[in-house]
């Protein structure tokens, strides 16, 4: 296990903690994207290019996009719910 792998592992641990400790969902979506990309780098350094490819697209793009769309809809629902009362 060389230095690069150790450094990326520590970064992933820190990023995971940051995802959990960010309470605002909008910011958390972006932090999740960064976490996904760091995970992809980790997979790459552990000699797993197939997995890294999947994780780049899914964790870096598709998942934050879905979360942002869901948050937008949530806010819309909340506003229309308040207007109905």
């Amino acid at each position: 296990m060389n230095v690069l792998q150790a450094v990326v592992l520590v970064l992933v641990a820190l990023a995971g903690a940051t995802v959990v400790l960010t309470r605002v969902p909008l910011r958390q979506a972006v932090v999740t994207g960064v976490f996904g990309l760091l995970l992809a780098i980790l997979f790459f350094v552990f000699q797993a290019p197939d997995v890294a490819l999947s994780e780049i697209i899914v964790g870096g793009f598709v998942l934050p996009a879905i979360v942002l769309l869901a948050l937008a809809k949530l806010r819309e629902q909340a506003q229309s719910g308040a207007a109905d009362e």
Partner: protein
Amino acid sequence: MSFLAYAVAAWLFLIGLYGVVTSRHLVHMVLCLGVVQASTYVLLLSIGYRTGAKAPIFADIPTSSRVVDPVVQALTLTDVVVEATVTALLLALVLQAQKRFGTVDPDEIGSLKG
């Protein structure tokens, strides 16, 4: 030093669970669940790793060279894609929950009875 990978996997699992338990927003809870999922990927890949070995693609290296384990990589790669879709399904459930209960705070949803 070689225990670091397992330690990071355990750390991610525990901190993800902490996030789920102390969450105040359902979307935050779903994303913390994603951190727990990531811990399983790290664990799987570190089990299959061999020091000094290469990626298991024999397109340009001789067939007898030392490579990391391909079986755990196969498991992890299907897992990554499937869990993203399951997360999307969970988010759709969150949308439904807000429609039914009017709130996304898990504590308040539990106490709305009758």
